[in-house]
């Protein structure tokens, strides 16, 4: 009984992450690693080093605005 009760409370407080959500988190973490490499290898372009460069998403967002 205690086992069921505790499991139910734990499930509510710490919901199980789906495989897709974990995959999204892993890819986002890899993107962050890739971004740190970009900053390291970019020659001279200060804006890229500061992360102040445009991406296609930014342009789409501007168009929508």
């Amino acid at each position: 009984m205690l086992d069921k009760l505790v499991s139910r409370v734990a499930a509510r407080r710490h919901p199980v992450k789906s495989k897709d959500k974990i995959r999204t988190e892993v890819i986002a973490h890899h993107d962050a690693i890739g971004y740190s490499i970009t900053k390291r290898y970019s020659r001279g372009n200060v804006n890229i080093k500061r992360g102040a460069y445009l991406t296609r998403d930014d342009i789409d967002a501007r168009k929508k605005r």
Partner: protein
Amino acid sequence: MDEDFRRHAAEDIARLLAHWRTIEFWIKKAEQINKQAVIPAINELRYASRQIFNAIRVLEKPVLSDGDESVISRRIIIGEQYLFNAEHDICDAIVTFYDEVVSDLDAKFGTTAITILYPEYPLLKRRIQDCQSLISDARLDYDKRFEVYSALRTNHIPHFVESYRTLVDAEVGAKEHQNRLDRQLIIAQAKITILGWFGLIAAIAAIVAIPLSIYLWTFAYEDFCSLHGKNAVLGLICSSSSQ
């Protein structure tokens, strides 16, 4: 002389454009691993394009002055350098990316946990080390650079592209397992806490119950004596002791 220069410059530009297309192909391959990491290579390719475009623009003039010829030669040299930078950046970025991902995996889950899910993981680590040795060798001997990066591109990068999906699957599996263990740990901790509270409440109840029962016993003794007399109490005690 002018025609000779034009012919040589056109050949150089054609060679650079072929090189440009090759690098673009490898950037597309590397993007299958990580789009962020290849941004420096894309930038170098952009700078090279600008140089090649300017060289072509000056070359199209009907008459070329000495200054024009010098500009074209310079643009070709700088453009080629940018193309080499782009070529090197692809390999460097992918190898560094893999190195960081693998270090991160080892620190979080350990080599054994990943190897269970991805049996070729130790071989992948070995390949990364080989690539790093090749890159450092290229720094030592400049003339070797072309061969080294060509070998990296043809022998190692395709393997990295192929194994990326498997590596991500292994990381997802390891993380899922880790989450399951964390959850079990939380449940176990919660059970221990609840049982601890029950124990504490029972201990407090026992501590209170003993003096309370002693205190209440005196009242019960007096009530019994008043009802049955003191002798009855002594008789009760004697009969219980003889039994």
